[in-house]
């Protein structure tokens, strides 16, 4: 079934679970480091390996960060919350359980308001938050043998527990309904806004590609007008913003095809495939999982004082949505350009250039224009290019001072990105410098006039278009590094003609 047809008939209902690894120095319940990419099993201890006799102790910073997240999402902070053991037999936790929160999460009942850019303009949606709770991340498995590195058919698995025990916060939405055809866009906007909030709070590095922010998307369809929810699928491994949109759209289409054929949607976990944009079935959830949750006896409850909550609330800083409004007005950016900058994730970068003295419009146009173009051409993210906000500020300043033309500035940007050094170094290495010294220009003009006396005479007699040949000669003499407008003005002056 085509998307346009399905949304005429069915209403999508979403539920989003976002896991975010907190950016603490140490793990949730022990002092092991949390560095990404460390050698396997070099960041473990008796606590996170679940060895007998070890006792977990809660990381205070992780609690503080979680409360900050709850407050930023307009949640109530529970005066009393507890940890629970979620028991399961998967070797990704060496303890055979994950310490999580169950019926007493730390934050409840929040919401997030979204401005969603759609083909019909900006639409507002509110996504309600059910809960925000604390838990710990699991280890990383490598599935060996078999055909594809997938868990099915693997001969055995290898476990690295460096990640096991890293503080993890799970943010769960209530049912998201009434978004209709915009459902995939709303979900993407939600994860993006959440990511920006978390980044703004400084509680996580929110790198989806490294797994520090992960989204699971529950999708179901029901006939429009129907109250009862349809059967949902839960898609995991959605690790980019674009994938959130694609995965949900794909699942809506897959469900609609099944329903149209009179078949049932299976309640199951599915895995998103980045390359094909499709999902494949994982563990079946037909048998409801029984995690035998019970209160964690090794940890005492968390009961944050009102003073603590208040002081965390006061340190939250500006909301990303407020910041966008403030910058848009301060920089006088048109709506469309603003959306382009936000979509390209360039707000921080442009702001950094502006804070280093660059004109906001100029800085924006280099980042959104030439630099984005090069990134596209190389098929990499802008952040991966070897050019800094400082470099761009410097280039904007040089162009402003007339020391670089736009054309030379583009070449400098290319040079910086090619790794030739900072703008000054590139200018020096490539011998770029706008010849703005009037003396040198006048000498070149005199030389040109002497070489082309007939042309000079024509200009003197008022035939201004003839000046082109002389300007060309000067530009050639200065190896194209003079500002042509300046040459023209000096030349006409020299030949006694008004500009």
């Amino acid at each position: 079934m085509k998307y346009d047809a399905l949304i005429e008939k069915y209403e999508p209902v979403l539920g989003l679970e976002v896991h975010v690894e907190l950016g603490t120095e140490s793990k949730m319940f022990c002092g092991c480091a949390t560095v990404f990419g460390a050698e396997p099993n070099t960041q473990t201890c008796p606590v996170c390996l679940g060895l007998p006799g070890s006792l977990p102790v809660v990381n205070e910073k992780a609690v503080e960060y979680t409360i900050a997240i709850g407050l930023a999402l307009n949640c109530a902070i529970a005066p009393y919350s507890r940890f629970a053991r979620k028991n399961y037999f998967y070797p990704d936790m060496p303890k055979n359980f994950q310490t999580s929160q169950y019926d007493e999460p730390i934050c409840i009942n929040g919401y997030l308001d979204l401005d969603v850019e759609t083909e019909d303009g900006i639409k507002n949606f509110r996504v309600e938050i059910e809960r925000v709770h604390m838990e710990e991340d699991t280890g990383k498995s490598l599935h060996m043998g078999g055909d594809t590195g997938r868990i099915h058919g693997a001969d055995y698995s290898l476990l690295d527990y460096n990640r096991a025990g890293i503080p993890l916060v799970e943010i769960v939405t209530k049912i998201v309904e009434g978004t209709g055809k915009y459902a995939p866009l709303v979900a993407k906007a939600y994860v993006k806004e959440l990511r920006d909030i978390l980044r703004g709070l400084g509680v996580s590095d929110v790198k989806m590609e490294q797994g520090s922010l992960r989204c699971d998307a529950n999708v179901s369809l029901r006939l429009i007008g129907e109250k009862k929810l349809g059967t949902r699928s839960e898609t995991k491994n959605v690790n980019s913003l674009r994938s959130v949109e694609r995965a949900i759209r794909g699942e809506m289409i897959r469900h609609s095809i099944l329903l149209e054929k009179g078949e049932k949607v299976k309640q199951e976990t599915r895995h998103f495939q980045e390359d094909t944009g499709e999902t494949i079935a994982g563990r079946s959830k037909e048998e409801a999982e029984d995690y035998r949750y019970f209160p964690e006896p090794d940890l005492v409850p968390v009961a944050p004082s009102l003073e603590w909550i208040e002081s965390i609330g006061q340190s939250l800083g500006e909301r990303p949505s407020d910041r966008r409004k403030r910058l848009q007005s301060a920089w006088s950016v048109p709506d469309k350009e603003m959306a382009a900058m936000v979509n390209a994730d360039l707000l921080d970068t442009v702001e950094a250039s502006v804070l280093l003295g660059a004109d906001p419009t100029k800085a924006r146009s280099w980042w959104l224009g030439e630099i984005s173009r090069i990134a596209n051409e190389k098929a990499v993210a802008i952040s991966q290019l070897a050019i800094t906000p400082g470099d761009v500020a410097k280039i904007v300043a040089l162009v402003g001072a007339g020391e670089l033309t736009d054309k030379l500035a583009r070449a400098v940007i290319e040079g910086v990105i090619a790794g030739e050094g900072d703008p000054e170094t590139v200018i020096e290495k490539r011998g770029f410098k706008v010849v703005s010294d009037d003396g040198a220009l006048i000498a070149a003009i005199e030389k040109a006039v002497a070489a082309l006396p007939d042309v000079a005479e024509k200009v003197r007699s008022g035939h201004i278009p003839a000046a082109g040949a002389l300007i060309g000669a000067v530009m050639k003499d200065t190896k194209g590094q003079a500002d042509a407008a300046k040459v023209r003005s000096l030349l006409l002056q020299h030949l006694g003609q008004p500009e």
Partner: protein
Amino acid sequence: MSSAAGISRAEVANLARLARIEMSDIELDHLASELGIILNAVAKVSEVATADIEPTSHPLAMVNVFRKDEIRPSLTAQEALSGAPAQEESRFKVPQILGDE
């Protein structure tokens, strides 16, 4: 599992499955009756757990036991793996997790 005394054979079988413990029919019958006795004994607690007594998950009335977010030395990979029955590439080696389904 309800607080009502006793445990059915089916409940024991389900728990055994969840705990990955293989049990024979004889063992299931045996355990269902033995666990039932234990549960009955523990259920006596509910006789004194009246409405005016708060549920508790911890024997001490303590809250907020925290540690500062500071790194402490970890084990070396060698130490971490020293108790592992099998290892490969500095990782714990475990048998097949899911069969071919």
